[in-house]
């Protein structure tokens, strides 16, 4: 089929880029510019992305790729280009929708911030980078944008730069993800030298690894896959590199919704999906992905139960849900992983924006200081409730369908991981109901008259709530659209039938019921567990002491090493230099002393020389 818009997909990232340049150059003089320019650019990108998506829904649409020579050495050349596939078209739409809504929302949320144009500039730069990442047609181009989204995340986490916490969080976000990036970089180096013709583009990668021709040895394949996964682990906050994501909540809440829930953190999942053929060529790598994902899912869900900061609970929830996606990919279900990415983007953005609306109204992030907001902030409460139900996997909301797809796969492939997934789903439902009831139910606390915000903040909530309801229907037992479209019809989800659905819905309801009993009804005391096992609560509150561990091992380790090397630099290396310098000076002084003009000295030296000469000559004779 002839395409009209697809070949112009490269324009999609350029709108936000133009917005960024415009805002950075002139933003300071025009305060009101940010909202208009940022939103307009996102809107333009969204329109084009939707056109591309619709075009790709037609029958028999080929993937479209185009690019240019970026770096031309005489022996090799590196290209930069874009490729539109069904997967990337879907991602484009996700990114542009959330970006647009966050742009609109921020008009209200950031209204009183004097650096609002800078904020909009950063968001535009992020949107550009994220869209570039999605469109990239090869590993190098992807890596470039991968780093750029990282730096945007850094800038936005540290947006309120005067707060020491924000500075620390921004630094941590950048450095921890960079550990992952180093892995990804080595993977690219390996690919470059092992791929035929040094090809780095996804089409060739797909061909080479798909054919199982043994072009690349199995060990190397596993190594490449694992190193790529290290990159994904960093970006998507998987264990053990998850530590940055909860701290990243120091950034403004709209950013948490856009970057740290819906788009950038999902980039790791997208990366694995994009290079899925490499992973599929190595069972070992797939297993690692699945187990790391599953572990992260349950690990983060349990932490979420014991947190008291509304944004941190959501952050651990994000970590946990990303773990679900990774687990799906590791179990071989591309559709499951991407489907969950798709639904999660909307309901998690919704939850964050809702949380933002609450924070905006009550000026605290501690859920124990909130309460009874349901009657005062009706729109926020309703939409947040929808998001929470979607996340908890209550049918027929979107999260239910995507979680069901993953659990189905797990049941088929690995019953243990299925069990982990179910337990994690229970915890998810529990912490969400705890959060919801503490914030919106009960008696109001605080004297402030909290109320819903202006339309710029509530409209995005409503739109996202609608999306959180409907997006699940693209892939149901009766309608296999997404799976067929993404994987070309080779993959079916929801094969487990009713059983998995019943279990998944049941644990969701159970989790919510438990939360209701504890936090509304009071049938079970809130400290039922913590009073009996205080160490458990502390362990969860302290997030299993992972941060403390890293602090001791890495930060102190590096400091210690620095101390050691500094001592070496100051005393040994510089010491030798000083010795050499000193020796030269001594030699000079010695020479000066010899030529002091005193005849006696000269005489002594002459005599001494003569004696040495005689001894030397005589010695040689008799040798």
């Amino acid at each position, binding site marked *: 089929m002839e395409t009209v818009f697809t070949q112009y997909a490269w324009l999609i990232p350029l709108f936000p880029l133009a917005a960024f340049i415009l805002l950075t150059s002139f933003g300071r003089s025009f305060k009101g510019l940010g909202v208009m320019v940022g939103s307009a650019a996102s809107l333009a990108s969204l329109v084009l992305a939707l056109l591309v998506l619709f075009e790709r829904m037609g029958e028999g649409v080929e993937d479209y790729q185009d690019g240019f020579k970026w770096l031309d050495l005489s022996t090799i050349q590196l290209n930069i280009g874009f490729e539109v596939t069904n997967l990337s078209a879907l991602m484009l739409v996700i990114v542009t929708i959330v970006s647009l809504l966050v742009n609109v929302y921020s008009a209200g949320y950031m209204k009183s911030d004097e650096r609002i144009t800078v904020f909009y500039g950063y968001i535009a730069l992020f949107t550009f980078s994220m869209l570039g990442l999605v469109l990239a047609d090869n590993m190098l181009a992807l890596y470039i944008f991968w780093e750029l989204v990282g730096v945007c995340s850094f800038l936005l986490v540290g947006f309120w*730069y005067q707060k020491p916490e924000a500075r620390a969080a921004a630094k941590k976000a950048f450095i921890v993800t960079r550990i992952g990036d180093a892995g990804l970089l080595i993977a690219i180096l390996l690919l470059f030298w092992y791929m035929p013709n040094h090809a780095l583009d996804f089409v060739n990668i797909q061909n080479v690894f798909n054919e199982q021709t043994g072009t690349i040895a199995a060990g190397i394949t596993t190594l490449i896959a694992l190193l790529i996964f290290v990159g994904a682990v960093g970006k998507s906050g998987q264990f053990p590199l998850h530590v940055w994501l909860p701290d990243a909540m120091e950034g403004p809440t709209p950013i948490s919704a856009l970057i740290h829930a819906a788009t950038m953190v999902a980039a790791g999942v997208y990366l694995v999906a994009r290079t899925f053929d490499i992973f599929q060529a190595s069972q070992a790598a797939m297993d690692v992905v699945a187990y790391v994902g599953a572990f992260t899912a349950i690990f983060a869900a349990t932490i979420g139960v014991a947190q008291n900061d509304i944004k941190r609970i959501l952050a651990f929830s994000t970590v946990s849900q990303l773990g679900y996606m990774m687990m799906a990919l590791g179990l071989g279900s591309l559709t499951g992983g991407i489907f969950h990415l798709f639904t999660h983007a909307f309901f998690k953005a919704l939850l964050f924006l809702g949380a933002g609306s609450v924070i905006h109204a009550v000026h605290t992030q501690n859920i124990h200081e909130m309460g009874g907001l349901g009657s005062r902030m009706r729109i926020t409460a309703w939409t947040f409730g929808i998001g929470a139900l979607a996340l908890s996997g209550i049918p027929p909301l979107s999260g239910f369908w995507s979680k069901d797809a993953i659990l189905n796969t797990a049941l088929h492939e690995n019953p243990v991981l299925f069990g982990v997934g179910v337990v994690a789903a229970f915890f998810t439902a529990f912490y969400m109901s705890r959060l919801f009831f503490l914030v919106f139910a009960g008696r109001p606390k605080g004297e402030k008259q909290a109320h819903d915000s202006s339309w710029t903040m509530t409209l995005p909530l409503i739109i996202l709530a609608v999306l959180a309801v409907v997006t699940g229907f693209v892939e149901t037992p009766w309608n296999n659209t997404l799976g067929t479209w993404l994987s070309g019809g080779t993959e079916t989800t929801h094969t487990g039938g009713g059983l998995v659905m019943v279990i998944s819905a049941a644990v969701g309801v159970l989790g919510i019921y438990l939360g209701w009993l504890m936090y509304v009804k009071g049938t079970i005391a809130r400290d039922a567990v913590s009073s009996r096992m205080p160490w458990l609560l502390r362990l969860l509150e302290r997030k299993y002491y992972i941060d403390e561990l890293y602090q001791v091992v890495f930060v102190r380790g590096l400091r210690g090493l620095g101390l050691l090397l500094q001592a070496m630099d100051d005393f040994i290396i510089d010491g030798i230099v000083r010795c050499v310098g000193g020796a030269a000076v001594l030699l000079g002084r010695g020479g000066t002393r010899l030529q002091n003009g005193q005849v006696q000295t000269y005489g002594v030296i002459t005599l001494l020389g003569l004696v040495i000469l005689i001894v030397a000559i005589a010695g040689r004779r008799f040798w």
Partner: protein
Amino acid sequence: MLADIPILSLITFSPLIGILVLLLLPKQNSRWLKVTAVTATLIPLALSLWLYADFDGTLGGKPYKESVTWVNAALNKETMPDIASYLFKFQYQMGIDGISLPLLLLTTIVAVMAALASVHVKKRWKAFYLWFLLLEIGMLGVFMARDVFLFFIFFELTLIPMFFLIGIWGFGGREKAANRFLIYNGIGSALMLLAFVMLVMTAGFRVDQVDQQTQHVYYSGSYEVIKDNLTDPDSFVNAAPESPLHMSDTMRWSIFILLLIAFGIKLPIFPFHTWMLRVHAEAHPAIVMIHSGVLLKMGAYGLLRFGVFLFPSQMRDWATVLAILGVINILYGAVLAFRQKEFKLVLAYSSISHMGIVLLGIASLNEIGLQGAMIQLVSHGLISALLFLIVGSLQERTGTTELGELGGLARSLPFMSGILLTAGMASLGLPGLSGFIGEFLSLLGLFDSMRVLTAVAVLGVILTAVYVLRSVLAITFGPMPERFGALRDARLVEAVPMIALLAFIILIGVYPSVLTEPMKHGFDALLQQLNVKVGG
């Protein structure tokens, strides 16, 4: 048409115009002295840009060659009565190729920016700018001289002005730093001179056959003569060991190692780095721009020009050694940069770390890595010039660059803080900025032959992020001390060079072909030779 005029000499000596005008100006008139100096540095910039536009990568620098016989010292010809002349020939020979050109441009660009940054100089402007322009002549000459002795002269010509520039206009410990600088570089120069003499007396030998009877025999310092002799398998130095003119392996290795140490001090390679720490900390920031931006690059350039091009097989045998030194430089510099409390010392150790990447690129001995090393040189030159430009402006306002005393400057100096943050990002290798290209290509090139070492070097990527963010955020983020509330952001004369340098950094980062195109064929002959040697 550029080929018809002695463009290389014009570029090299164009700062002389400025020197002459400066000499005529009264020494109290700081304004006019500054204007003159900045204008004087614009001339070589314009000329070198013209040369860049005219340069054709496929031709290399052939059209621009300049050569004049300078010294003809007669040698004792009695031992060889049947030849027409027996001379020691020392030529004024200038040339350019894909390796010189990027560094030439770097020099002219950084010189302009440093001249602009010198607005903060408080005393003896006339002497300052005279030394400054003299220094520029030396730097330009180094990259274009094609005779080993001419190279040596230009190389030395950079030392003396630098000595005074550090010693007179620096901070508290300036005199000690200047002495250190001179002694250390003096040792380097002595070793280099020794190596050059050894080179000329072995590989510099040449016989020109005019006709059957007339033979001109001479020792030449010409780089081309030496290179031809060393690299041509049929030349007499490569003849059978019985031949009197045969050059032994010992001789080759001795010269190679002498050169490695001589240029290693300049680069600097661990453990020869301590001298440059003082210079970074004590010299005037405008001078450090030159020092870190250009002078360190002369070490790498010398290593490439004389080490790699003249002794490819020695280089190949020692590639691993060089790569290990590179990795040490990277990690050692990064860990120590993380520890420093003084921002200038952070940048000094950071330079050591970044020069390690250059060593990696050179050690790869393939086109990707060598190009990467070149780009890294230019990129680091621009980035460290920009960083020290900011340091100068900061010091001017806050009176300190101790990390512990600074903080929150993004509030009172948003523009400068933004530039500082971007420069930091460039330094840690953010894609889209020039640092990434050099780093990536160097690593990519080295990975072909040394996988594990490259992987270890990638750790440096993480550590760089750690120390750059630590120091930059300590300055710009966090709560701002009260006393910095009234600081004024960059003036126009400061903002212009900042934006210009950043523009170059972005240009190379986004479109690296601006650098790789002219360099494209710069390594052809070398690579061919390395391949032949590998095959044979």
